């Protein structure tokens, strides 16, 4: 193992609740998660699992009816969870932690030239002015792989293709040399070839600027290409976290198994694709035990009563499932998955 890397962002026992018409929804249930300097962490999970809420809370962009009830988000010896004023957040947002949003087609202001939109950020956070800001903007455009920058600077978003616009969004995000970059479904709206280019661009920028990147996605294909570590979320909780190969080829939580089994690549031709039965739990209600238990064919009695703790599998790999308890019966992952695991491990050993 590599020596322990330094942690840049620490989330401790975070609980986030929303109030909707008098009812309380718990979107994040007691999450603890670390982000290491220079790594790529992927947060995967289905819609509504709380991935986006988690990231919004880091940037102070939660909707007005949502708030942090408990826990801490520590960045740079400050607890972001305690921030209340806009002034406090402005020191972090965009400057230290930046974000690449989901849909590049709608993420840019249609009435401002892309140059001005990037420059706004440069002026705001780097304190550059006039010609300096202009030069910096051109440099950023070049950085994200845009050619003919002087002409492009003066153009409006509608004169760019989707992939190009995503590059602009990335340029805006890195304009202030942030320490952490949050990519919220960065490639969902793009076609596959452009996806690969954008992911490669992010990787290059990560090396160049030493960024720590958090990918929020439900696309395991993307995860496999870029992530160093994966955190799997279900119903507002991180249920398994580990290095990419550990999650893909040695996962322990039945939900992670189900998630990987639903990859189309794992199905065989002519058979129905695997899908997880049932629906995610109602977050308005208090959840006892393991949130996945009602949909889990391997669920034990205790899964319905007590929330499993994190069981350690390796230095980097943890999972929240009672199946790892010494007293639990031995359960093997589904056969198709076992084959996939074996294949993956054999590649890893090569």
């Amino acid at each position, binding site marked *: 193992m590599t020596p322990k890397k330094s942690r840049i962002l620490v989330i401790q026992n975070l609980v986030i609740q929303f109030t909707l018409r008098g009812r309380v929804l718990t979107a994040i249930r007691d999450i603890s998660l670390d982000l290491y300097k220079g790594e790529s962490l992927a947060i995967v999970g289905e819609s509504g699992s709380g991935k986006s809420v988690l990231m919004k809370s880091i940037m102070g962009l939660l909707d007005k009816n949502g708030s942090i009830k408990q826990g801490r988000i520590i960045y740079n010896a400050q607890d972001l969870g305690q921030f209340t004023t806009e002034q406090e957040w402005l020191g972090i947002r965009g400057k230290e932690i930046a974000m690449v949003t989901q849909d590049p087609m709608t993420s840019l202001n249609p*009435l401002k030239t892309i140059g001005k939109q990037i420059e706004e*950020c440069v002026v705001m956070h780097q304190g550059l002015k006039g010609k300096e800001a202009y030069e910096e903007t051109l440099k950023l455009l070049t950085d994200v792989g845009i050619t003919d920058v002087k002409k492009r600077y003066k153009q*409006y978003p509608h004169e760019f293709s989707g992939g190009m616009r995503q590059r602009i969004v990335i340029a805006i995000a890195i304009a202030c040399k942030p320490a952490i970059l949050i990519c919220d479904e960065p490639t969902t709206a793009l076609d596959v070839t452009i996806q690969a280019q954008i992911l490669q661009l992010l990787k290059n920028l990560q090396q160049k600027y030493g960024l720590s990147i958090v990918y929020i996605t439900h696309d395991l294909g993307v995860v496999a290409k870029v992530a160093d570590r994966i955190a799997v979320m279900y119903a507002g909780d991180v249920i398994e976290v580990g290095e990419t190969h550990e999650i893909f080829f040695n996962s322990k939580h039945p939900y992670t198994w189900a998630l990987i089994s639903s990859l189309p690549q794992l199905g065989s031709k002519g058979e129905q694709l695997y899908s997880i039965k049932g629906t995610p739990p109602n977050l308005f209600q208090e959840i006892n035990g393991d949130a996945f238990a009602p949909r889990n064919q391997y669920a034990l009695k205790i899964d319905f009563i007590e929330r499993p703790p994190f069981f350690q599998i390796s230095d980097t790999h943890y999972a929240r499932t009672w199946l790892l308890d010494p007293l639990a019966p031995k359960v093997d992952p589904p056969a198709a998955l076992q084959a996939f695991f074996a294949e993956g491990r054999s590649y890893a050993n090569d």
Partner: protein
Amino acid sequence: MLQYIGKRLLQSVLTLFIIITIVFSLLRLMPEEGYLGAAADKMSPAQQEIYLTNLGLRDPLLVQLGHFYNNLLQGDLGKSVTYRTDVPVVTIIGDKISYSLLFGLGAVALSLIIGVPLGIMMAYRKGRWLDRLGTGYIVFVVAVPAAVYYLVIQMYITDLFQLPMLFDEYRPITWILPLTSMALAPTASYAMWMRRYMVDELNKDYIKLARAKGVKERTLMFKHVLRNAFIPMAQYLPATILFTITGSIYIESLYSIPGMGGLLVDAIQRQDNTIVQGLVLVFSSLGIIGLILGDIAMALVDPRIKLGKGGGVR
């Protein structure tokens, strides 16, 4: 840009031409007493016939149309037979239009100065008391017929503030009530639109990105949202402004303002064909100018509209 404006102007002239032709033809289908006026009773049928022939009404329709356009190009809209028969229609309308223009522009200015900032503040403080108050006002003005609140003004406000009711050119204090009454409705519309378009823009993705990159809420509101919300406003503003200028029949008669609003109704009732023609020309020109100005204004603020090519299609 110039090419675009030129093209739009050309289209407008064509539209105007068609409107005038239609109005002209419709009026020719009306009873001919409209050209005789009060003198009709004193003339024998033979005299009437001679009178109408002299006016050119026995010529073929196309010839009449030709004459009409010829006169129009020289700024001659003919003379009225029922209303100040010695003065050209152009002068009559000209006299009236200045009053309507004064009150129309005044009311528009007033409602823009109050309505637009109100809408902006309502969007900025969405859901708070100012927003609720403003919404209440808008709902009231839209839902209650204008006649009702005009009457309320007439009955109570005049007493309350000791304001004179009837318009007198030479006493500026008499201008207050007509101006405020006229501004009530447009203020509500401008506030409503402004708020609506601002809220629309606020929900868009680029606002989320702007927030994420650390733009202050105030800066966001005034630098990003406001301009974008102005695009739909810019398109409709000129037309509504001109609509207000054409004068409100109700308000002009309520405060006895000698404006254009009442003239059309009057002229139609008296079957005064020349005045009707002239007014339709003025109204439709104003409407068309409003539309062109709206298109140009929108083209100026929205870079997505390619000028010259494609005729201003987004």
